[in-house]
């Protein structure tokens, strides 16, 4: 096999890598929004409960979480395909990180924004959705893009629960022929080809946001 054939062979796993990433986002985005906002708004016991759930998903080692859910859910009578378990665990882990960005973004807003909204007679939920969230989410966009890259890279884990992603393909090819240097260099290059454009995009977003902010400050 030439190095090009190896690379293309590994890239056959891109479908699974992309699918897990996409389904992971279905868990990550709602979790980050709901729990980030909840942590920002709640006080007392409710705040404690929200924080505990976030910390469980954020502070656990994601590789162990994946195995725990992979083996424990069937015992609880919940039979899910490996791809669903992987998307849920990776997604909620990323969502845990995302929730902190959402909360930090909300907390970083000038208090005057909230006060002006109340002075104009906006209800709390309208203030949140129309004034606070749009600014907070834009401000944190570069962070979200970084976390998206972490999610893509995290999907390499699914190769350990028998899903045929790019990493799994690399291991399959490694069984067919002895060329570790070619195979694992190709594997690194395959992930680089997927993630680097996102990195560049993130940098572009960051620059644009930076430029916009300078303008408003100058005003």
């Amino acid at each position: 096999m030439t190095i090009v054939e190896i690379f293309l062979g590994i890239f056959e796993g891109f479908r699974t890598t992309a699918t897990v990433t996409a389904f992971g986002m279905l868990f990550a985005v709602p979790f980050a929004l709901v729990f980030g906002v909840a942590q920002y708004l709640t006080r007392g016991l409710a705040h404690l409960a929200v924080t505990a759930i976030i910390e469980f998903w954020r502070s656990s080692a994601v590789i162990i979480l994946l195995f725990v859910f992979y083996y424990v859910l069937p015992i609880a009578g919940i039979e899910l395909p490996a791809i669903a378990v992987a998307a849920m665990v990776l997604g909620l882990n990323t969502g845990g990180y995302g929730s902190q960005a959402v909360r930090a973004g909300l907390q970083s807003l000038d208090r005057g924004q909230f006060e002006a909204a109340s002075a104009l007679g906006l209800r709390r939920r309208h203030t949140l959705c129309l004034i606070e969230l749009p600014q907070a989410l834009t401000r944190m966009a570069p962070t979200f893009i970084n976390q998206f890259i972490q999610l893509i890279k995290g999907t390499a884990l699914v190769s350990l629960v028998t899903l045929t992603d790019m990493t799994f393909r690399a291991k399959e090819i490694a069984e067919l022929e002895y060329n570790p240097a070619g195979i694992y260099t190709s594997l690194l290059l395959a992930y680089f080809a997927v993630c680097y454009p996102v990195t560049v995009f993130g940098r572009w977003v960051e620059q644009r946001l930076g430029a916009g902010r300078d303008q408003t400050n100058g005003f």
Partner: protein
Amino acid sequence: MDFDLAFAVSTVLPILSVIGTTIGVALLSCAGASVLGFAFEITRRGGAAPGYLIRFVIDFIRSTPVLAWLYFLYFVLPYYGLTLSSLTVGVLGLSLYFSGYLAEVFKAGIDAVPKGQSEAAKALGLNRVDSLFFIIAPQMLRNVAAPVGNHFVSILKATPYLAVIAVPEMLGKAFDIASDTYRYAEPLTVAGIVFLFLALAIAHMVRLLERKLMGPTRR
């Protein structure tokens, strides 16, 4: 199959018995990643060709999963006649992977030292190296302590990845127990809980450290 609580409890001590390996690997990797990340950042600041090269290396590392790096080092080094213990490969892999992130920490840490400091050093006739090690680096330490601590927690949470290259840390131990007894859920759950509490405890210590370091500068 039910979740056997008594069996789960019986796996706690064997899993805890290798907690030293986990913490040791995390400490060594954090030290390795710091040294490498600092070296990257210094070279990047040198500008010109090596600067661009380092920038690319850091982007490459940040665009590729830690699992791919571990496989790469574990399978490719022996191919070129360099056989290292799996523990060494693990520490090397984590050091390399996290050096890309720590370089950014050092960048921010150095940027936060007032420009007057390096100008004063120059005025006093210190050369670039002396100025870096005796003037900038000591002041940078206060800025980087908390972020390095946060990355230490990330490294700690990445140590279970080393189970895939047969390093006897806590997840590896849990899998040993699982394959001996054919019961996966219990030892994995125990390992997950131990990791969660370990990560939370260390994250809490980092927060205390952060507060202590922030104290005097706030006055």
